């Protein structure tokens, strides 16, 4: 199995484990209010969703504007399983929601013949079609009035750790994929499908694989989301805003990187929280401006900006030596 070996030095896990442990301990220290804890939980969920989107949009270069379909499906399948007369335990329901979303995303297989903007446009179609389909399928989604989940006291608090666990898992997976030969093949497919085939990469298989994994993780995220808000409606879960959100988070943070979608998700959640409260009309406009600026000036988003700053600092430090040289 050496051909799948990932180039991940074990010590690189140390800071990551420390950060996750600190975050896990955070709600136990009494300083954090339920409001703040909920905000962080939402951020964890968005991190998972953005990173999973990034496997498609960043590693494979297939920018999807339809991931809300998997988010919504995962959410509603999980909700229905928990509302059943023999209710499934929440984690099982989330997992099955994710599997359903993964299988559903396989339906987009024919679209993988398209690349670039053509693929993106097709995903808009599929996303919107799913929204309409599930809005009219009232037995499943409750139609416009949505679905309320059974009240589980303490679930909202516990979800902090579940969401953290999911985010930690997805960050690890993203990192390992990026550094493994699988990630190399995905980047090769992104650069040139035909050239990838010429070196033996089965592009069709890997695109399907990544699409299913990405869809499944976004589906699981949808399930946790449903439990967290204990009320979901199709217009929101399958909404185009949600698909755009996954794109925005990755692009703001830095598409194709691991750190990028994490940063992007945090910024997205915070901005949304503060702007939605005071200027509900403004926040989408602000995202639009941010997106244009990033695409124009720093295609790697916040990550690229950070790298650029680091380079500038290093150059300034080195500058005196340069002056002294003959």
């Amino acid at each position, binding site marked *: 199995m*050496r051909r799948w070996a990932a180039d991940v030095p074990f010590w690189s896990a140390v800071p990551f484990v420390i950060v996750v442990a600190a975050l896990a301990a955070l709600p136990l220290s009494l300083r954090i209010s339920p409001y703040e804890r909920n905000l962080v939980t939402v951020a964890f969920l968005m991190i998972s969703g953005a990173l999973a989107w990034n496997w498609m949009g960043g590693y494979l270069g297939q920018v999807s504007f339809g991931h809300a379909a998997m988010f919504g499906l995962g959410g509603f399948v999980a909700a229905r399983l928990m509302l059943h007369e023999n209710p499934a335990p929440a984690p099982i329901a989330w997992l099955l929601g994710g599997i359903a979303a993964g299988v559903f995303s396989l339906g987009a297989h024919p679209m993988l013949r398209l690349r670039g903007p053509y693929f993106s446009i097709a995903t808009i179609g599929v996303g919107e079609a799913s929204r309409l389909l599930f809005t009219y399928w009232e037995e499943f989604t409750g139609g416009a009035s949505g679905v309320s989940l059974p009240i589980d006291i303490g679930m909202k608090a516990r979800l902090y750790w579940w969401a953290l666990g999911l985010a930690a898992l997805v960050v690890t997976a993203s990192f390992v994929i990026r550094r493994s030969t699988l990630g190399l093949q995905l980047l090769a497919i992104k650069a040139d499908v035909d050239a990838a085939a010429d070196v033996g990469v089965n592009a069709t298989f890997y695109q399907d694989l990544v699409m299913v994994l990405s869809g499944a993780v976004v589906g699981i995220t949808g399930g946790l989301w449903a439990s967290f808000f204990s009320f979901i409606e199709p217009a929101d879960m399958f909404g185009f805003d949600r698909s755009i959100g996954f794109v925005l988070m990755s692009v703001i943070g830095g598409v194709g990187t691991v750190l990028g979608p994490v940063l992007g998700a945090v910024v997205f959640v915070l901005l949304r929280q503060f702007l939605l409260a005071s200027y509900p009309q403004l926040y989408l406009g602000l995202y639009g401006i941010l997106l244009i600026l990033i695409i124009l000036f720093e295609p790697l988003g916040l990550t690229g900006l950070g790298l650029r700053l680091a380079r500038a600092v290093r150059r300034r430090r080195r500058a005196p030596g340069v002056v002294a040289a003959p």
Partner: protein
Amino acid sequence: MTKPPLLATRAVSKHFGGLKAVDEVDLELAQGEILGVIGPNGAGKTTLFSLIAGSIQPTSGEVLMRGHEVSGRPAYRLVRAGVVRTHQLVRPFPNLTVAENVTVGAIHGAWRDEASPRARAAEVLEFVGLAERANELPGTLTLAGRKRLELARALAIVPLVLMLDEVIAGVNPVEAMKLAALIRRIRDERGVSIVMIEHVMPAVMSLSDRIAVLDHGKKIAEGKPAEVAANPLVVEAYLGKGAAEEGATPA
């Protein structure tokens, strides 16, 4: 019964509408051989390569590898069987470093030993003389450098048959000589059999054990380089009718 050749085409044809781009071509490549494929522009050389490599399907005829039919298989499966091609226009993955480009090649292919893809990539980069550029992006390489990279990526697959589409064309004469020497080393030191399309006549004449000449999709001549160069049909294809009588040879 004689052993079947490593790679062979049997009356392979490709028609694009009324155009017969490749018309019933028979080729054979023996183990350890360098076969040159020459012909005027539009003769169907690259189409023939695409047919063998699985990028396009033949209209009729078949491609055989050690006697087994392989035509109709997708490109990535032919690569795994050991048939690897390079392109006229080099196509490195611009978002990957030189070493990563080669590593992608080292993941699949016909190799069966223990080396990890990265170790194999490092070894191949050393062989083609790009080891020092391993961590740079392909965009920083010269054209000759990118051609070496293309060779390295193909070699990392450990091919049985390497199909080179104008690897030497387009670089300066000094680099051309170095690339020709590298191609010879690929055959001599790594035992790879080679089919090469080339317009640079001194290179193809000196490297090839045999040469096949295509014109308008048909194979019009085949043989040792000197025989082919003296063949009136070949002279005519390159220089036009009448040139053969005047005693000209292809440039």
